[in-house]
């Protein structure tokens, strides 16, 4: 299976492969977003406090049957992007903060580690959410929580058309393979032409889709209406339970408590 084929399968699994849990998607969304906000309040100078926050994605993914390994693997794809955000910190901030096994740790490295952990935690929280709700349910939850219909529609169409774009790329890739006679690598120029062609095909398709939308009365307004099912006790228990756990992970001095325990 080529990389594009795998990407198509992975994209479809965002919905069809989601391991649903019996908690309302709105509540899961609130918990996940609350978790991200709490993670972002942890100071960059204290990455140790972030380590305990991994309890949320680990417990959620294992309890729902998604499996933390899957979430971890998926989240590693964005690690380079997260690293790019903090890559200059170790160079620009060289104030020493500690010496560990003879190696001087600088403030820049500490904040860089904190940025990596914050990024991974945020991405993992959202991955757990889509893996346990499905992408469509997340969009519906957004709408039900009052997010403007135009934003939700954009998000859903983006999701739909990543698939279409991948299918275009897949057909071009297959056509190239069919006439590639086993050739594995291609010069950069060819790749740039491939991407250019993909862009042109996507624009053409976007034009045709726009026509199809107009043909069915689209005038720029979005009419997504979803019923708001009532919440159950289990939803509220889930919300309160996780709120308590996340606040505890954030504010209790777990590291100090553990080091005291060990020193005794």
């Amino acid at each position: 299976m080529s990389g594009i084929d795998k990407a198509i399968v992975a994209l479809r699994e965002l919905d069809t492969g989601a391991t649903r849990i019996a908690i309302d998607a709105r509540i899961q969304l609130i918990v996940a977003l609350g978790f991200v906000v709490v993670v972002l309040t942890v100071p960059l100078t204290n990455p140790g406090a972030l380590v305990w926050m991994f309890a949320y994605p680990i417990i959620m993914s294992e309890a729902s049957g998604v499996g933390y390994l899957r979430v971890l693997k998926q989240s590693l794809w964005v690690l380079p992007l997260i690293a790019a955000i903090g890559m200059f910190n170790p160079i620009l901030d060289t104030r020493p903060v500690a010496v560990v096994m003879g190696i001087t740790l600088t403030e820049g490295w500490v904040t860089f580690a904190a940025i990596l952990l914050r990024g991974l935690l945020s991405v993992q929280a959202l991955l757990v959410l889509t893996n346990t709700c499905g992408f469509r349910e997340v969009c519906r939850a957004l709408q039900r929580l009052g997010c403007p219909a135009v934003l939700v529609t954009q998000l859903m169409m983006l999701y739909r058309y990543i698939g279409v774009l991948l299918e275009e790329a897949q057909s071009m890739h297959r056509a190239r393979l069919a006439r590639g006679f086993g050739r594995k690598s291609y010069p950069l120029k060819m790749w740039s032409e491939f991407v250019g062609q993909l862009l042109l095909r996507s624009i053409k398709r976007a034009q045709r889709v726009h026509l199809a939308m107009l043909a069915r009365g689209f005038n720029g307004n979005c009419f997504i209406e979803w019923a708001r099912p009532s919440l159950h006790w289990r939803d509220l228990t889930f919300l309160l339970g996780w709120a308590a756990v996340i606040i505890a992970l954030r504010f209790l001095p777990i590291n100090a408590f553990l080091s005291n325990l060990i020193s005794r």
Partner: protein
Amino acid sequence: MSHHYIRYTNVHYSYPSGQEALKGVDLLIKHGEKVALLGLNGAGKSTLLLLTNGLLLPTEGEVNVGDVPVSKKTAPMVRRAVGMVFQNPDDQLFMPTVWDDVAFGPRNMQLPPSEVERRVEVALRSVGAWDLRDRAPSDLSGGQKRAVAIATVLSMEPNILVMDEPSSNLDSRTREQLMAIVNDFHHTVVIATHDLEMALELCPRSVIMKDGRIIADGLTERLLRDQELLELAGLSLTPALAEYVEK
């Protein structure tokens, strides 16, 4: 029966690239007629359909749907009456689920939710796709996509159905289903197609186009018997169809 007719009066259309797609088309399609537009690629069939729906406006001449001249101002009203099924169902299915896609048109018509639900159910059941309602369009087979694409238009309860190459890429079973759907549609139908068998089976009347002009208009059976005309239009009969027409 539909209360709408379609009248094209000296219609010209040029694309922004300068390509002249229609060169003075005059045509009247009456209430409840089923008409096939036949011709090679580039003959102007699809352009004529896009003009009917108000997606393109003529550079010269006039298109009337009923008593309404198609213009930028009247296009939204015209699109309520004229349902268009596009050649590639992937272009037509853009929402994340089949249900949302079929509901897209009725919602844009600002119908009450209960009426939207009713229309979606009726449309999906009529094409045999009710069981697919929660599926993502990307997960459907070619035939299923085509059926749902037709449902997206039927849910708007149009008076006129225009279809661009509806039988392309369909297997024989799905093609049969499509024919049944069109046969059950009791309003005006205009089909642009290369599929001469489909034209013969569904449309008593055909219009043959070449290079943006109408070169023949009449009974499908009679036109398909005219070998000289077919050669001029670049159309050819399959052996089975040739045998049938000769009989």
